[in-house]
């Protein structure tokens, strides 16, 4: 999960490099740091550095990191020859390296040689049982073969040991959501909120899941989490503002006739609605009338 500013920064750099303005190494480092999946760009710009001896040598010992990054990007783009080329260079430089061994196993994965890759990972794990990357590759392989329940099992086992791995919790939550196993997804987001209480995106995802499950208690909890997103983002989150309106409307439907509930929630909903209308007026005026009728139908329903 990257913040809006981080994403804007990467996109700006990407545009710059794409249009010949330089900064390829900076871009590649940022993509690596933010763990983004932009394999076609990484492949293109990474190779432009690696294929130029002068550019390559100016990297010093970072050259090997780049070979690794490009190898992985090449595998993602199914350019297996390029990947093999990079891995061969690394093998020559670091013979008997476990890290290179991992790349070799990933290449087997990319070729679709699942059982061979599995064997390779198992033998690598014998020497280093706590290699997080390898454990997660096993879950990724299950997912790649369409075995989502296998992926879930792998991730759950992994998280029993490495319970602070945000990315794994997030991946597991997303798999649960795709299978409509919302209660399990909610549990993952609860863990994420515990790990990163000030990350609004965790609160938002949790609120979305609670709303999807439905029921009065969940809707009321969802509303609280949408409110905390608004709090954490200074009111700048469109999804959370809509969330408040949806929750209030749904709660209103469930509690028709209970006056106290209605009065309490109307205040927050009208604040959210006003904020949305102000934003749309400024940044999406062509959609303002659509927004207004959407909000009207939520207030009435």
């Amino acid at each position, binding site marked *: 999960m990257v913040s*809006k500013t981080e994403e804007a920064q990467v996109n700006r750099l990407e545009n710059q490099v794409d249009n010949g303005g330089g900064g390829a190494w900076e871009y590649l480092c940022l993509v690596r740091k933010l763990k983004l*999946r932009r394999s076609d760009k990484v492949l293109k710009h990474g190779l432009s550095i690696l294929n130029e001896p002068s550019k390559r040598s100016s990297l010093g010992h970072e050259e090997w990191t780049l070979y690794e990054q490009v190898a992985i990007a090449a595998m993602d783009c199914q350019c297996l020859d390029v990947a093999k080329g990079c891995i061969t260079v690394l093998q020559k430089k670091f013979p008997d390296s476990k890290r290179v061994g991992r790349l070799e196993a990933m290449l087997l994965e990319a070729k679709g040689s699942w059982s061979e890759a599995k064997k390779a990972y198992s033998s690598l794990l014998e020497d280093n049982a706590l290699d997080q990357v390898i454990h997660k590759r096993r879950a990724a392989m299950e997912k*790649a073969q*369409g075995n989502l329940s296998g992926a879930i099992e792998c991730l759950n086992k992994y998280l029993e040991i490495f319970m602070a791995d945000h990315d794994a919790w997030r991946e597991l939550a*997303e798999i649960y*959501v*795709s*299978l*409509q196993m*919302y209660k399990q997804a909610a549990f993952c987001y609860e863990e994420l909120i515990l790990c990163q209480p000030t990350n609004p995106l965790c609160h938002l*995802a949790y*609120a*979305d*899941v609670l*709303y*999807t499950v439905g029921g009065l208690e969940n809707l009321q909890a969802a509303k609280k989490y949408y409110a905390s997103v608004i709090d954490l983002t200074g009111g700048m989150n*469109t*999804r959370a503002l*809509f*969330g408040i309106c*949806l929750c209030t409307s749904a709660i209103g439907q469930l509690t028709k006739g209970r006056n106290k509930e209605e009065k309490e929630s109307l205040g927050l909903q009208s604040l959210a609605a006003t904020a949305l209308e102000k*934003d*749309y007026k400024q*940044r*999406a005026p*062509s*959609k303002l009338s*659509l*927004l207004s*009728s*959407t909000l009207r*139908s*939520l207030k009435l329903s």
Partner: protein
Amino acid sequence: MGGELRYEIGQTAYIKLVLHALKHKTAAVNGVLLGRLSDGDAVEIADAVPLFHSHLGLLPPLEIALLQIEEYYGAQGMAIVGYFHANERFNDFELSNVARNIGDHVHRYFPQAALLLLDSKKLEALPKGKDRSPVMQLYTKDSSKSWKQVGSDGSSRFSIKEPSANIVLLDYISTQKMQDMVDFDDHLDDISKDWLNPELGK
């Protein structure tokens, strides 16, 4: 329901959906189909709105999207006539539960609803051949209340209105036009982005 109906998708709608899927190659994506029933014997899919590329199974963004989309297209005499889904994995031709559920919802309001699934193998083969048929599989809900594939026997019940649509599509792909696609996810992250994608219209 949907017995011998033909389904015809307009070029704009078709291209929007495929470009959206290509923009987010590593994710599952979905969209809604807009159009009308014409002369009682064909469903005309005149436009499409790409919806999401993450968390397809969550309700709040879907509800907001459908409210706005129904409002906009209703004013133009069009209704939601179907749903498009592209799976995350290349050779996955299964209709996921999310696709079925959203399809069911559309079907409740429009019984002749079309459920379209991206055929990535066909899409990959497109540059190599002269195929004019859509790179999608069509499913409709028959009287047995389950989604069944239509036209897999080579019949022409599902076609693109403009015969050269695939050529236009390939041209757009080569000029990286998919980067300009805006879906509802993008709109919710930045409301200045327009999910109507007006520059891709005729």
